């Protein structure tokens, strides 16, 4: 029974006009343990066209993959030279800056979609919705926005790779995205967009959980939740190690 129903259900899907994306990621969860130095995510999937192959006479579609970390409310400060030394002067607040943002595409994003579409779907480092809360002049906001992107790009937290997506025979795609060790923990999303002629034909989202595991999780939790015990253990550890070293040295 079941075998018969399955193909029947697929029929309307395949005969519909818009293609369907079937995305997946190599890891649904990344565990941070003692030896964590970063991870590499493989994002892959298939494009299901009506009829099962790329319609004849159509230009090949582009694939854009965006991996986003949990958004943070942040305060961005800018240093200025005052009386000979560099001190923090102006600042800007953002309600929803992504803690991690990586975009991979099959062609430079500027050639795939126009500025409006980029802004709607937050495609590209120049189109992030940071939601600043201060009412600074647009040029000041732009300067701070560029500063934040530049800072996080150098930390490996914001990435833009215009050639990282490979599309095989127009139906299979894959992309690799590097996750650095300094990554924040939380729920990440991997969004995949199928775009042709500047229009988003299909989009799909997968969640990835990045979390500390084992000893690292235990320590980070203890530091947050049982801070007095944690402090006592830290002091006890230093006294014990110092005392042991002195005891050993006296006997050498």
């Amino acid at each position, binding site marked *: 029974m079941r075998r018969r129903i399955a193909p029947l259900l697929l029929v309307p899907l395949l005969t519909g006009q818009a293609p369907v994306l079937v995305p997946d990621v190599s890891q649904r969860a990344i565990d941070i343990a003692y030896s964590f130095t970063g991870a590499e995510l493989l994002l892959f999937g298939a494009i299901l066209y009506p009829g099962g192959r790329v319609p004849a006479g159509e230009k090949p579609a582009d694939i854009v993959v965006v991996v986003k970390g949990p958004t943070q409310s942040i305060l961005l400060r800018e240093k200025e030279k005052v009386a000979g030394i560099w001190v923090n002067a102006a600042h800007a607040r953002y309600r929803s800056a992504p803690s991690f943002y990586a975009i991979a595409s099959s062609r430079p994003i500027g050639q795939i979609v126009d500025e409006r579409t980029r802004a709607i779907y937050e495609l590209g480092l120049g189109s992030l919705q940071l939601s600043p809360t201060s009412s600074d002049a647009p040029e000041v906001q732009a300067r701070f926005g560029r*500063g934040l992107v530049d*800072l996080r790009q150098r930390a490996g937290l914001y990435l833009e790779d215009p050639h990282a997506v490979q599309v095989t025979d127009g139906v299979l795609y894959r992309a690799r995205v590097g996750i650095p*060790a300094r990554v924040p923990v939380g729920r990440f999303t991997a969004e995949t967009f199928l775009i042709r002629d500047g229009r988003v034909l299909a989009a799909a989202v997968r969640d990835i959980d990045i979390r500390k595991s084992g000893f690292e999780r235990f320590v980070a939790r203890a530091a947050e939740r049982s801070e007095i015990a944690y402090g006592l253990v830290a002091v006890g550890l230093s006294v014990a190690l*110092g005392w042991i070293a002195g005891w050993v040295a006296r006997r050498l």
Partner: protein
Amino acid sequence: MDLYLPVANLSVNALVIVLLGAGVGLLSGMFGVGGGFLTTPLLIVYGIPPTVAAASSASQVTGASVSGVFAHVRRGGVDFKMGGVLVGGGVLGTGAGAWAFRRLQELGQIDTVIGVVYVAMLGWIGSLMLREALAAILVSRRGEALRAAKRRHHPLVASLPFRTRFYASGLYISPLAPLLLGFATGILTMLLGIGGGFILVPAMIYLLGMATGVVVGTSLFQTLFVTAVATMVHATTTRAVDIVLAGLLLIGSVTGAQIGARLANRVKPEYLRLALALIVLAVGVRILLGLVWRPEEIFTVSAG
């Protein structure tokens, strides 16, 4: 050998941190200082967030001072009454320091203040030590015996009320003087993650006029307790103590401290002081350059 630091949220080369601890421990064993004034800036240069660096290096100083305190207690080199007053002042100082830390963090000026205080302190102490060490070397080169300076406390100290006797230190002074001294050192411990030994020792000799035999032991006694309290305060307020980072630093520094203590016996003390003065000045100049050179990162992010 990469190791992930669960509170700092980044991975470091464990061997580099252990060696850093060992190097600082070697110096602290040789010169009898806690070495926090080197650990915090070096950790920041390595890429550890400043708050985590200050919080975790305080516990390293605790470890480095433990065996020193035991050694001094055994040979009667600790004035417990004086030490107790200093610790009391120090604990009050860490409280004030914690408040200042939070206030400066809100204003976004904590890094600048840490830098400026370091430069002022290291420059001042370093040049004093350099002058004193050079004079001592010149005198011993000429073959003269150094005239022992007459021990006396500063006139301001003598004018404070409620005098009491500190037998081991050979003093009859107001406990307010060491209380204030402990308070100032406690603030520095909290802000900079240092033990403050290199402030405390000269102050005890030149301001309080303590008997030199108990100066180092009593200073270590104060350092041990005040850095332990500072670690507790950091653990409960900034929550920036990274126990893995502290452990790595400790393994290196307690070993280095023992080796350093043995090396120190083979070198003439005035040359040791000269070397320490040069190191202190070099660190001060490095931090000064960090303040005046255009930084690589004009922008910084903090939780808001």
